[in-house]
């Protein structure tokens, strides 16, 4: 509980700042109300406290402590944990212009994790449409619009405690810092069919892929904040500081390494609130030969296909599929010899999930998710499996919107990692399980008026 109190204390400052800003905006709104043809400034926020009682079972220690585990928690964390406290704040600065900031406290995942940092921060401009085309422009640090699972405030999931492997990774290593344009339109007047396109250019995210290779895919709910320095698995080769230029084993996934922008783009089709299909391409365009600030560039790119379908009787189906690769310079050779970072390799990244969910009487939700994931090297037979596995996740959630929810989630992850005996002296196969009872308390501005 001390952890929770600490977290509350550290969230108090941004919350106060947000409230002060809110008061200022409201004050202005009152002035404007006197001139009724003018608009009202407004602010919206959601404050959320995520705690969970966890019973993990894993042969490894948690990755957030520099371990090899796919889980956020290991057996030493059994019991109550404060997962996250955050404020998701939106200021409507002018009609069509919104500032959004997610200020986040998480208690784990690196030496300087004990504070408040920003997860997303951007300005969004939506000009009032002058035709059927609805344009939107965002600039700042934000998630690409890929996840169909993280639609809640602060990129939280309404479905369960942990995220799918794909979205866990987006939360860990992907946070473009740049400009995104998107457009949506109905295909014709009255039609439920809409088409959308989006495209972005961004800096940062050059080391993305590092954690995915060295640790493998993971499934949890910890999102990396903009300035987080994540711990890395205890790679023996890295104990020689000369190779990587520093002695610590860490990752700052959103750093810019080569000064070259990356980009993403996609198309979307919707049919009312019944169906959605999206196809996109992401490429950080990082130079794998570039080294800066203690980190290498990893050229990570992927295609992403996602779809969701509303079914009768409160059922819904969601699926995402990610297929990509990462180019990087390795210092390891299969016989374990120690070489400089000169060998250019390409690894394939692939993950998918399918989730069936059902919402009953607007309060009870049951979700079942299957995840499959892989990191492998195809180029030099025999194929090298850096990580290959599957996971089943079953969650029940009782939810009172904008107040609280309680989730009971059971998860089992099975994986195989051929490299691990020689990299870490660890067993190549592992089964990890976790039972979580998550309790989320929420204060939503829409409830205050």
């Amino acid at each position, binding site marked *: 509980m001390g952890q929770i109190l600490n977290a509350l204390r550290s969230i108090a400052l941004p919350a106060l700042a947000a409230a002060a800003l809110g008061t200022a905006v409201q004050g202005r709104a009152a002035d404007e109300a006197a001139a009724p043809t003018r608009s009202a400034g407004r602010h919206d926020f959601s404050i959320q406290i995520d705690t969970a009682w966890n019973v993990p079972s894993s042969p490894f220690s948690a990755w957030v402590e520099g371990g090899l585990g796919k889980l956020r928690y290991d057996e030493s964390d059994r019991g109550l944990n404060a997962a996250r406290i955050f404020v998701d704040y939106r200021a409507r600065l002018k009609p*069509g212009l919104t500032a959004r900031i997610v200020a986040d406290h998480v208690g784990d995942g690196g030496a300087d994790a004990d504070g408040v940092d920003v997860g997303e921060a951007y300005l969004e401009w939506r000009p009032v449409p002058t035709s059927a085309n609805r344009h939107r422009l965002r600039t700042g640090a934000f998630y690409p619009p890929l996840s169909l699972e993280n*639609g809640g405030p602060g990129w939280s999931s309404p479905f369960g405690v942990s995220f799918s492997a794909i979205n866990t990774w987006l939360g860990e290593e992907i946070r473009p810092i740049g400009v995104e344009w998107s457009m949506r339109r109905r295909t014709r007047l009255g039609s*439920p069919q809409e088409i959308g396109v989006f495209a972005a250019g961004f800096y940062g995210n050059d080391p993305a892929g590092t954690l995915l290779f060295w640790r493998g895919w993971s499934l949890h709910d910890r999102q990396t904040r903009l300035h987080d320095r994540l711990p890395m698995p205890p790679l023996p080769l890295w104990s020689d500081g000369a190779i990587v230029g520093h002695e610590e084993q860490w990752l700052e996934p959103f750093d810019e390494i080569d000064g070259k922008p990356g980009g993403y783009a996609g198309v979307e089709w919707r049919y009312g*609130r019944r169906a959605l299909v999206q196809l996109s391409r992401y490429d950080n365009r990082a130079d794998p030969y570039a080294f800066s600030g203690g980190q290498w560039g990893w050229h990570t790119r992927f295609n992403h296909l996602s779809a969701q379908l509303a079914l009768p009787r409160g059922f819904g189906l969601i699926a995402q599929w990610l297929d990509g690769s990462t180019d990087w310079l390795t210092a390891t050779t299969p016989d374990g010899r120690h070489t400089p970072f000169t060998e250019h390799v390409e690894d394939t990244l692939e993950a998918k999930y399918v989730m069936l969910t059902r919402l009953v009487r607007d309060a009870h939700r049951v979700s079942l998710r299957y995840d499959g994931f892989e990191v492998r090297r195809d180029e030099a037979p025999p194929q090298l499996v850096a990580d290959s596995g599957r996971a089943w996740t079953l969650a029940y959630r009782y939810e009172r*919107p904008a107040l609280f929810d309680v989730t009971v989630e059971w998860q089992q992850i099975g994986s195989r990692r051929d490299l691990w005996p020689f990299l870490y002296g660890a067993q190549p196969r592992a089964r990890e399980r976790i039972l979580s009872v998550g309790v989320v308390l929420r204060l939503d501005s829409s409830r205050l008026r």
Partner: protein
Amino acid sequence: MLLGALPALACADIAVTVLDADGAPVGDVAVYAVPRTTAATGSAGPAAAVMDQADSAFVPHLLVVEAGTYIEFPNNDTVSHHVYSFSDAKRFELPLYKGNLHPPLRFDTPGVVVLGCNIHDGMLGYILVVDTPWFTVTNAAGEARLPALPDGDYAVHVWTPRARAGDLPRPRQTNVSDGSARELRFRFEGKLMPAHEDRHGRSTLTWDRY
């Protein structure tokens, strides 16, 4: 009641039933009668109308008004809306508001006005501005009644955003006289698009990210 009070004025109802291509009733269809003889006028001028916003939806989803009507757009939600239209019949914008911030707007040009919200992508509403005081909207049984039309010739039209323009039934000519009610039946030729689903209640999946 009107008939009782004014026995000398000759008038009658037009009852309308609207069916889809399969013969099932269609609700929420605008029905209006345009007089073909100038004699058949005599409304006291258009009344005021209200397009409410509740639960992040336009209420009603389809509002029919006579040209010249002033429409209010009160926002009864706890969240702000930013209502706009880019339709030729009425281009306007009511920036970011709650409650009754903006004065009513006058809708003069007959035609379809599509309403959107610049904050909530899923919000969609329609105003049909017609050049007649005799209009209504069908109920769930596909039925509507235009009451107490003065004697004369009328063209009766139906309209819904769910029909493609080519699939709208043609206007029907009818004559009201001798106080006898007319019954008209309209049928859509093509398949109708599904009704717009407003965001009432919670949805199983997330369609608009937080």
